[in-house]
């Protein structure tokens, strides 16, 4: 590495010193882990000293929800692996290898053999070390150090040899605080997104009539008529099960093949959609048309998508295509009905257990729907569409913030 790389491209004002390379072993008081108490799971208690295991460690976050507890005596036997405030904890085996977090609690805890304690010397910040471990470079080191095949994990020697560049303690702290703020912001956005989804669920509960009711609890002003109960078969003009093909996919082929995957989150996405060829007749029989209503019939049962424009696509055998009588029901309204409890309570009765859960068109047609006037349906459809769009935008914003963190991790470290 050349000398002009010894400082990151973005750093806080007032810091100009070059960063220095240090091995973890040289700047830590301790690198080590604990063990599984004799007797394993059966010795875990409901209260006691928390025993942190790899499943409790997430990206710089400790999750105590399914924490195991050990007795004081066991903790005493394992006093070498007691965790102190500001220790960095790193998963060193298994699928979650490389995940790390700073222990921020005042109370003591212990760790098992899958979690390594990294306890920095004075003048080295735990947050800074954790950030380095979670950076692309740090993860790369974890990956490279895994001896043979990835299953064996990291040993303490390898960990102590991991080297990163360090500025002085003040700059470390400042960088640590900045990322803490960034993480906090991301968590808030996640919370906001969850609440928005919860809000939609709440509206779904209140804007469709409950079982045995004919009007919903909340509805748009100006509508007072009772909703009418219809069988889904009464509002269906046409339905057809999708096209079964064993043909190989190729990007140069003519038609998109729509599968359950394309319908994830109830909207059509053509990002990784495979393409196939088909005879003209098959295409004519199985092409999707504007205003088709596709539902997944196996696996992710309960998912659907409305076709809004003509696309050169064939719907596959895991889908059923419905065309509804649009003078009685709008596709959007049917979709939100399909998401509502009113439908879900019926769905449970009609799914068929096999190696995968299944529904068929006849099952769906046997369900009951409550219908208001087309005008009211349109209003309801638009309203939920707006909620969905808002949720999607927030989702997008959250992803952008996560990207931003990644970019800063690249640019603010050496």
């Amino acid at each position, binding site marked *: 590495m050349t000398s002009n790389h010894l*400082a*990151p*491209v*973005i*750093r*806080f*004002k007032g810091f100009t010193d070059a960063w220095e390379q240090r091995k973890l072993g040289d700047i830590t008081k301790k690198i080590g882990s604990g063990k599984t108490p004799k007797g394993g799971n059966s010795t875990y208690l409901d209260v006691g000293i928390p025993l942190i295991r790899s499943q409790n460690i997430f990206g710089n976050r400790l999750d105590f929800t399914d924490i195991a507890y050990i007795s004081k005596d066991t903790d005493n036997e394992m006093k070498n692996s007691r965790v102190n405030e500001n220790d960095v904890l790193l998963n060193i085996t298994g699928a979650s290898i490389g995940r790390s977090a700073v222990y921020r609690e005042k109370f003591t805890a212990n760790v098992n053999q899958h979690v390594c304690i990294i306890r920095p010397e004075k003048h080295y910040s735990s947050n800074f070390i954790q950030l380095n471990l979670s950076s692309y470079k740090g993860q790369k080191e974890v990956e490279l150090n895994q001896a043979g095949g990835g299953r064996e994990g990291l040993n303490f020697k390898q960990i102590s040899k991991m080297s990163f560049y360090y500025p002085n303690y003040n700059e470390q702290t400042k960088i640590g*605080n*900045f990322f803490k*703020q*960034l993480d*906090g*912001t991301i968590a*808030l*956005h996640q*919370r*906001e997104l969850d*609440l*928005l989804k*919860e*809000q939609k*669920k*709440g*509206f779904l*509960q*209140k804007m469709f009539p409950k079982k045995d009711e004919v009007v919903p609890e909340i509805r748009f002003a100006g509508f007072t008529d009772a909703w009418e109960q219809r069988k889904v078969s009464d509002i269906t003009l046409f339905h057809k099960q999708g096209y079964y093909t064993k043909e190989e996919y190729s990007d140069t082929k003519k038609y998109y093949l729509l599968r359950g995957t394309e319908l994830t989150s109830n909207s059509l996405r053509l990002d990784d959609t495979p393409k196939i060829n088909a005879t003209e007749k098959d295409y004519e029989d199985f092409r999707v048309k504007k205003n088709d209503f596709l539902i997944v019939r196996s696996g992710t049962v309960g998912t659907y998508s409305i076709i809004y424009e003509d696309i050169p696509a064939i719907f596959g055998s895991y889908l059923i295509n419905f065309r509804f009588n649009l003078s009685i029901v709008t596709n959007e309204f049917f979709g939100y009905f399909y998401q509502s*409890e009113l439908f*879900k*309570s019926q769905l*449970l*009765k*009609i*799914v*068929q*257990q*096999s*190696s995968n859960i299944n529904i068929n068109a006849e099952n769906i047609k046997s369900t009951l729907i409550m219908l208001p006037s087309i005008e009211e349906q349109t209003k309801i459809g638009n309203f939920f569409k707006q909620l969905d769009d808002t949720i999607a935008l927030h989702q997008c*914003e959250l992803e*952008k913030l996560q990207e*931003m963190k990644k*970019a*800063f991790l690249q*640019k603010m470290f050496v």
Partner: protein
Amino acid sequence: MSKQESKTLYQALWNSADILRSKMDAADYKDYLLGLVFYKYLSDRMLYSAADLLEQPAHSLKEAQAIYEEAFKDGELRDDLISELKYMYSYALEPGLTFTSLVDKIHMGQFQLEDLAQGFRNIEQSSELFVNLFEDIDLYSKRLGTTPQKQNKTISEVMVELDSLDIAHEGDALGDAYEYLIGQFASDSGKKAGEFYTPQAVSTLMTQIVLSGKEDKRGFSVYDAAMGSGSLLLNVQKFSNEPGTINYFGQELKTSTYNLARMNMILHGVDVANQHLHNSDTLDADWPTEEPTNFDAVLMNPPYSAKWTADKGFLDDPRFAPYGVLAPKSKADFAFLLHGYYHLKDTGVMAIVLPHGVLFRGAAEGKIRKILLEHGAIDTVIGLPANIFFNTSIPTTVIVLKKNRKNRDVFFIDASKDFEKGKNQNVLTNDAIDNILQTYLARENVDKYAQLATFDEITENDFNLNIPRYVDTFEEEEPISLKHVATELTAVQKDIAEAHQVLATFLDDLVATTDDAKDELDAFKSILTRGGDNHDK
């Protein structure tokens, strides 16, 4: 047998399995191991009995062997002893062929595989009961070793390991240990060895259902037309108060599995007169065709959705004729069911495990189901949890059938959520079994668990028996307070605005050392301020 003892017994069995495990699949080595355990059982039992007959009760196999050898030296005594033993067990091994003496030879380096093979032959030829019992045990198989020396060594090691077992004195325990091993093989090798094994929990449930009210009946007869290792049949022994009088009828397609069932019967102490096992294809010619042909109980766990010929000729077969159609070629489920039902007494009870598809599939299966329902044949449908069998993860159902019912209602029990998660399988707990059984016996509705459906309801549902149609397990969503969500959203949005402001101050404090980095930094700043503005509104 105490828990401690059984643990050692299981442990020793499992250790011997270890010796073979490196050499072949569980599906194959089970034949060797179970065969050798069985041979040791026959040998030990005989030695102790011989000592008793000679009125010199032995405290160890060594003693018994010595007494037996001694007696053989006296010609007259020997002949009496042999005829007495043959009367008791129908076989008598020469002293040199007992398991005990073979192990001695192993220790002295004089063991020949041929001796063991001779022992097998002697047993097999001694009675109809034992014919071909050891035919799956190829002592000269290349899998045991590439040279005769290596083959000899492998078998010797297993025999030495088994030698520590005192199995003659634990009749029942050994039978259970045998079952344990079969179960272990099943879970060990998944599909291959698991096809002949029904998990104990399911066996227990089915057995108690068919036996209920008849626990004291003498001469109870039970038939399993797809018996596998016979564990379902033998379970009846555990719950009957007259276990010695039970008559077992079983049929099995695979010869090696059929032999396993025969050994299992003997190990469980079932009298020769009470075993009626048959090695043949249930879906071919009918069996049994000679009296008795109908039984107090039919228990079955047939292979799921097996292929069969569905030959048109079967439409004239009295087993299938009443239904006018045959089970589809690719799904023999109903063929097995109808075969079993055909052999049920008017007062009998049948329990069969099948995949859920039989409850709702249409076409021929729909027609058969309809006729069965119209006859009131289907008494109860029990939905079991998914992934409780060794060879398949699909959810299964136990269907209880009866003849001559006064009613045509069907009782549904949805036990699909009654399980504990195990390592690879879900486990049906004793509590869950009890609960199912009590519910079955009470035949009363239990909210979200059990429902009695009238024939009219069944008709309304087009004779579709899919359990969720009758047992409503829908849990209503927690009501969400929009007011609460709104308050929280407001708070979060306020926090976001503040967080963005703090972040913005951090960003103001950052400097870029290259032009590229500066551009990016500026872009980030604008994102955050924009984001902040949005949330301030």
